[in-house]
Structure formats: C-alpha cells, structure tokens
C-alpha cells in the first residue's frame, strides 16, 4: 500500500490498528492472507527437508 511516505514500525502499528478499528473484517482478511502464506511456505519447506530435520529445527525454534 502506497501512503506517500515511509513509516517506522511503531507508526505502522498505530496506522494498522486504527484501520482495523474502522473496518475489522477487511483487516482480518488481509492478516489471514499473510498468516496463511507464511504457514504454507513453512510447511512446504519442512516437507521438502524431511520430517527428522524439520522436527529438529522446530524443536530448536521452540527452545529459543
């Protein structure tokens, strides 16, 4: 989304929260797309490297 200037992270949080307050369903649709893409990509990666390696990575991530 081009809003004409560059926001820092904090400004974006405020901008997005206000957008959600005004139109929650539209924000939910956008964030659902983001979460789905992330999970689908990660699952494809973990399937490609195999269960043993995948579980090792996931367990290490969980420890951290």
């Amino acid at each position, binding site marked *: 989304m081009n809003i004409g200037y560059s926001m820092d*992270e*904090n400004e974006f*949080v*405020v901008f*997005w*929260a*206000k*957008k*959600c*307050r005004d139109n*929650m*369903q539209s*924000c*939910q*649709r*956008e*964030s*659902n*797309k*983001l*979460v*789905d893409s*992330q*999970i*689908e990509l*990660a*699952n494809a990666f*973990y*399937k490609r490297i195999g269960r043993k390696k*995948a*579980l090792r990575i*996931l*367990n290490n991530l*969980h420890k951290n």
Partner: protein
Amino acid sequence: MDLLVSDTNILTKFTADFVKVIDKLNIKYAIVSGFVVIAHGRSRGTEDIDLIIERLSKEQFYKLHNELEKNEFECLQGNNVENLYVDYLIDNLSLRYVRKNEFLPEMELKLSKDKLDEYQLKTRTKLKLTNLNFYFSTIEMNIAFKEELLKSGKDLADAKHLRIIYENKLNKKEIENIKKMINEYRL
C-alpha cells in the same frame, strides 16, 4: 457469530477442529496471547496458538490425547502419554500438537498452573469483534501480560494494537489489577 468459510484461515480452521475435541470432553480452555491479537486483524505472522486448559488428572489427559489422535492430531513430543503428562504437563511445560503429517500450525497446550491462570479461565470470554466462536482470555488480561511480563517489541506492539481497537471500552483498573497479580505470581 458463526464463521463464514470464506473468512476463515488456516489458523482458525485448525483451532476450530482442536477446540471441538476439547469441548466434547467438557474441558475448560482459553486461547491466549498472539492469536487473540491476530484475530483482531493485527498484521503479523504466527505459527502457533497458545491454549490454557484447566488442570487434568492423568486419566483425563489420556482421554484427551487419545481423542486428539482420533481426530488426526499428533503431539510433536511423542505419543507416550505417561511421559507427556509427567515430563511436560505436570512440569508446566507445553505440549505441541499439529495435524498429522503437517508441521504447522502448532497448538501449544498448557495446564493452568497458578491462580493467575485460574483467573484467566474464570474470566474467559467470547470476543464479538473477532467473529470467532472461541473462548479467549480477556483483552485486559492480554494487554497486561504483554506490557508487564512478556515485553518484547512484538508483544508491546500487540498490546498497543488492542489498546487502539478497544480504546474506550477497556477496564483500565482491571489491567492494573492483573499487572499486580502478574507481579505476585510470575515475577
């Protein structure tokens, strides 16, 4: 309040299937932390859902674990129910369940461990704005945890998001009370 299929995503469908098993066994639960904020439109990724359930006996947990397996979930820490109960749940560690043959999302399941968790379960609520038919810990609870205990950049941004969404509806006194409880039981 029911979900429209077009509005659900992977996390929501996963949670709905998982909670269906919990509900069937009449186990009291509350969804806490990241998913609460994402369900309010916050634009950030996550791969897990945190769920607190009431304390279970070993036998009750066996029943839950078996029912989850029957419903195509598996526990990433193994399937020896005795070990899962003793080495994880009783030690206040989470069990991570995924759909069989998938890796993500994960359901991080924990037993209620102290008075604060009991209070989270007691005050759990359905949040109309999410349009989801799940029990969540209260908005005040999530803000207090993120501001007082978790405090990472991501958590503080989550709290800010909720504060803006619920600007005029927050019980500020309750947030302060919960922060006091966090200091008493967790810090």
